[in-house]
């Protein structure tokens, strides 16, 4: 049989859109990050590494960098822990499990911006239901100004995001659980393995593909966090919840385009550095499987 000649031009529309509207801005972004491009100036001048030098001197960037790492690490861990726990619970034969699965995924389909506004009301220091509830059950000493206290603000945002994304991880883990042969579980319980050792030695290793997918998606998604932080704290109080995208927003609104682009490039480098190796590992394993 002769080799079929699949027409190359079938791939052109996708390539054109991606090349023009994704790759091109990235490449011109590299150039603009080396300029003093400012909305108020007439000309754009090449200034070499000045933006980057300036950025690294700036405590705000350091703070944004640290916060993004803390946020991404905490969300990745907590999202996966709650995701696995929920999936294990809802994999049992509970009467309400279909309804519950549906409920846990619900927040994921709501716009993060809207979720931000809802939780701003929930964390209100005076009337918000978190503090009202703590007061009601006699834990009034735990009442805090959750979003305006530098000690708690980042933590509060992390918890809010877990509320939003835990159900997503749950679904991916539930899918992974379906691939575990039932007789494997049964034979191990006949052999007398208890729940924990069965989880550690059989269930968890077999969940590995779901785990990789979840970790990768959680990491990448959380490094690009924007709306929730913008609505809940705008990066404040001070710069205590500043992340890359809130920093880009403020430098952008003040008209410092070159500078804002440099921040964007750093985020680009940071995400690629973390994400690409993980993705390559995944792809390699996919071939082996």
């Amino acid at each position, binding site marked *: 049989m002769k080799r079929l000649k*699949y027409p190359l031009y079938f791939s052109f529309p996708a390539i054109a859109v*991606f090349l023009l509207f994704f790759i091109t801005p990235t490449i011109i972004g590299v150039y603009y990050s080396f300029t003093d491009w400012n909305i108020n100036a007439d000309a754009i001048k090449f200034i070499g590494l000045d933006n980057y030098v300036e950025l690294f001197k700036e405590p705000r960037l350091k703070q944004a960098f640290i916060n993004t790492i803390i946020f991404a690490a905490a969300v990745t861990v907590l999202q996966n822990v709650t995701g696995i726990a929920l999936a294990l619970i809802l994999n049992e034969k509970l009467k309400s499990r279909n309804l519950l699965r549906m409920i846990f995924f619900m927040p994921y389909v709501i716009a993060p911006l809207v979720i931000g506004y809802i939780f701003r009301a929930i964390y209100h220091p005076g009337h918000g239901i978190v503090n009202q509830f703590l007061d009601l059950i006699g834990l009034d000493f735990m009442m805090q100004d959750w979003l305006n206290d530098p000690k708690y603000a980042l933590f509060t945002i992390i918890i809010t995001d877990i509320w939003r994304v835990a159900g997503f991880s749950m679904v991916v883990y539930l899918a992974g659980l379906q691939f575990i042969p039932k007789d494997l579980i049964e034979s191990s319980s006949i052999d007398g393995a208890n729940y924990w050792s069965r989880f550690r030695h059989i269930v968890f290793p077999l969940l590995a*593909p779901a785990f990789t997918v979840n970790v990768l998606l959680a990491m990448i998604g959380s490094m690009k966090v924007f709306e929730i932080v913008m609505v809940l704290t705008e990066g404040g109080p001070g710069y205590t919840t500043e992340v890359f995208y809130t920093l880009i927003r403020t430098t952008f609104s003040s008209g410092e385009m070159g500078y804002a682009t440099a921040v964007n490039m750093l985020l680009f480098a940071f995400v690629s550095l973390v994400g690409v190796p993980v993705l390559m590992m995944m792809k390699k394993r996919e071939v082996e499987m």
Partner: protein
Amino acid sequence: MTRRSSLIALEIVAIALALLILIPFFMILVNSFKGIRESALFGLSLPTTWEFGNYKDVFKQDNIIRGFKNSFLISGLTVVCVNLFAAMSAFIIQRRGGKFLNGVYLAFIMGLIVPVSIIPTIKLMNDLHIKGTYFSIIMYYSAVLLPFAVFLLVGFMKSIPRELDEAALLEGCGYFRLFFRIILPLISTVLVTVSIVVIVSVWNDFFGPFYLVTDSTKWTIVLQVFNFVTLYSTNWGVVFAFMIVVITPVLVIYLFLQRYIIDGLTAGSMKG
């Protein structure tokens, strides 16, 4: 503990956790029926007097209907672009292979993880004289979502036997007919998944239109929420009513499609 009673205990824990998810929704729902003073307290109690006028105030705003229309138009056209372009290229990438297409595939995979450079994108749209048009925002979303769709579709395309292509072409079928008549129907389930993910991402996105759409008549519904809260945050009853209006269609669609959403995530993640 017996198996039965431990199951009951587990069910109670699960229901308690589900309440944590539901309470915020309940909070905005009850407060959307309260007057100015009462709604500012963000409580969970039922309204003392039911203020249905909040909803009337919401629908009096012309820009809300317009926001829905814009969201609908933009996400609809993005779905068409992403599905069509991604399916065509995934078909060729998987079937033809070779250095060039492998490179293209790799570039798409990179696009899956790295963030867009938003300010250069604004500049580019400006230089192309399409800034602020529907076309520019649809192209932006297509560029951002193509990687995911290509990735998913290439994976799925492997499961469609080449013998099918050979047979069809032998029968005198052209590549266009092969693709549109035979391949597309076979991948329709994955296209449903792609469509749902695209719709949810575009509908809920704030980042893109916030930077790319300056003309308020082209604002999507999420941008209208942002604008509305900034302007009217003195009356939370109305703000919450607006949120209910924005959330409800998404939730209704979700309830109808949740089986597909969850199956799609399953298929996608396990193949991916």
